[in-house]
């Protein structure tokens, strides 16, 4: 049955046909992203306890690894400073364990995603803003771990400013890749549990690397697996920023991180398109 409208004049409200089309105006993609990023950062700052919890495991591994292997590595394997050798792993660990999709999936499950989607903002800004917010957290983790490392004796062998900036840049690029995985799962499933479980991909990707020992000391299938894992080159580049700077190693590391992030961001884009299409 069709429900036809009566004459417009019948309704008591005055018609606004000749009035401005509402106050809404295009804000632009950059403005949309800034607004969403600001909100994401506000959310992170409002839950400092989550920030601290996220640092506990990387710090724990860092300290345990140094305690278990530090003396052996330095005395038997010729690694100058094992804390310096391990710090990049802890920083990458922290970056990988962030879950950019968590905030997003809570928005989806709670209905706030719909509320934001009803605005004329570019919908991609809803994802990119969350990702940028997560990178703010990654930056915080990295700086906190760098400070902790320095406190227990980590030192840069090359220029510390260049080393720090390079390490942070690489970590952010790498972090985008991992955050994109959980964002893709959040968009594709809308499930909090599924999104949180993406953490599991961290294990093969980050432990099948020269995380404990240099690659030249590895043999057999493990060495093969480590050499095939693109994360190996990210780890080695990160170490290069703290140790002896090697442009070739750094280039390979950035390339591996960029390819990984491009792949996972493409998955995010697909999941995003699907969610927008399906509603």
């Amino acid at each position, binding site marked *: 049955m069709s429900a036809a409208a009566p004459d417009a004049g019948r309704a008591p409200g005055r018609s606004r046909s000749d009035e401005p089309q*509402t*106050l809404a*105006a295009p804000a632009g993609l950059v403005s949309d992203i800034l607004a969403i990023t600001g909100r994401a950062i506000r959310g992170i700052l409002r839950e400092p306890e989550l920030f601290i919890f996220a640092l506990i495991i990387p710090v724990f591994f860092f300290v345990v690894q140094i305690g278990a292997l530090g003396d052996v590595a330095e005395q038997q394997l010729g690694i100058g400073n094992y804390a310096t050798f391990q710090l990049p792993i802890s920083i990458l660990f922290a970056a990988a364990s962030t879950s950019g999709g968590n905030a997003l999936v809570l928005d989806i499950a709670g209905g706030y995603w719909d509320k934001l989607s009803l605005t004329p903002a570019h919908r991609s800004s809803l994802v990119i803003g969350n990702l940028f917010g997560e990178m703010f957290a990654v930056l915080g983790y990295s700086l906190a771990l760098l400070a902790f490392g320095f406190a227990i004796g980590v030192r840069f062998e090359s220029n510390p400013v260049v080393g720090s900036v390079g390490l942070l840049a690489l970590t952010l690029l790498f972090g985008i890749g991992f955050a994109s995985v959980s964002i893709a799962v959040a968009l594709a499933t809308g499930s909090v549990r599924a999104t949180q479980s993406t953490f599991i991909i961290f294990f093969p990707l980050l432990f099948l690397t020269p995380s404990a020992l240099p690659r030249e000391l590895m043999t057999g299938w493990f060495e093969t697996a480590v050499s095939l894992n693109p994360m190996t080159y990210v780890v080695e580049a990160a170490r290069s920023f703290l140790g002896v700077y090697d442009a070739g190693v750094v280039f390979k590391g950035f390339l591996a991180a960029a390819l990984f992030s491009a792949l996972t961001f493409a998955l995010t884009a697909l999941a995003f398109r699907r969610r927008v299409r399906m*509603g």
Partner: protein
Amino acid sequence: MSAIQATDLVRQFGEVEAVRGVSLEVAEGEIYGFLGPNGAGKSTIVRILTTLLQPTSGSGSVLGHDVVKEPTTVRRLIGVALQEAGLDPKQTGRELLALQGKLYGLKGSVLTGQVTEVTELVGLTDAIDRRIQTYSGGMKRRLDLASALLHRPRVLFLDEPTTGLDPLSRALIWDRIRELRERFGATIFLTTQYLEEADELADRVAIIDHGRIVRQGTPAALKAEVGADVIDVAVEEREVGAARAAITELQASGELPAGELRGTQAGYTLFVPDGPENLAVLIRGLDKAGVRFGAVSVSRPTLDDVFLAATGGRMATADQDGQGEDGQDREPEPAGTGRRSS
């Protein structure tokens, strides 16, 4: 130009056809009540018309802009408060409104002014700088409504804005809805489960059931469609059979017109013309038959009666078993307003 138009809208979710060929048209400045039980398809239609969901087939437009082809334009023109007020609990009310305003392209003093205006409009001035996680359900609904109004939309979609609210909060939302139309001339598409709400607010009402519009018109016209007055008779459980037999006998003999007879939890409801005159006939007939009965009243039909006729009473009885209208199997009473005695 219509404020809202839908033509043969269909939406399937796998095998389930949630919306089955809905067409409707809403004029500018109109409050259009969209009434239906849970699962009838109300929210799906709102999601389609507000660009959140694409129809499987058919088309929809807002102020002449197609909801599928021009979604961004449509979003600038509409304000939406969805059934579940999805709000970020970690933000304060002011932060949420400011973010919402920025996404609508509002800046500087315009943004600040609008935040103040809508906050005052929904009566949240004292709480606006508190985090949303401290808000009550009613306050969240009002904040949601405020955020839908920030950019002065020309068309407002309110999806069950008062479901679950206490009477005071409900009355406040109703006042705001009326004010919006009066002050801004906004067109309002209001879905509700509450017959009273539709009766109070809507210029026109459509009743949707199983994905289809089954009745539409002004509340007065819909009530007139029932075409009869309503006599309610309270009867004790043990007198049910005797009462039905007596009423049926009165109808068979022509003393009472052959109107619809429906069992209720309290007794019977009889739909007949000339209610006051036939009330006397009914009382005399029941008395003569020796049927013990309680309160008897006559009233004009309400939207409850329209709804019952259109949907078989599924509105208030979605989780109960309606058991026909033979008087032996009682049909639970519908939700909504109490009957108004004449």
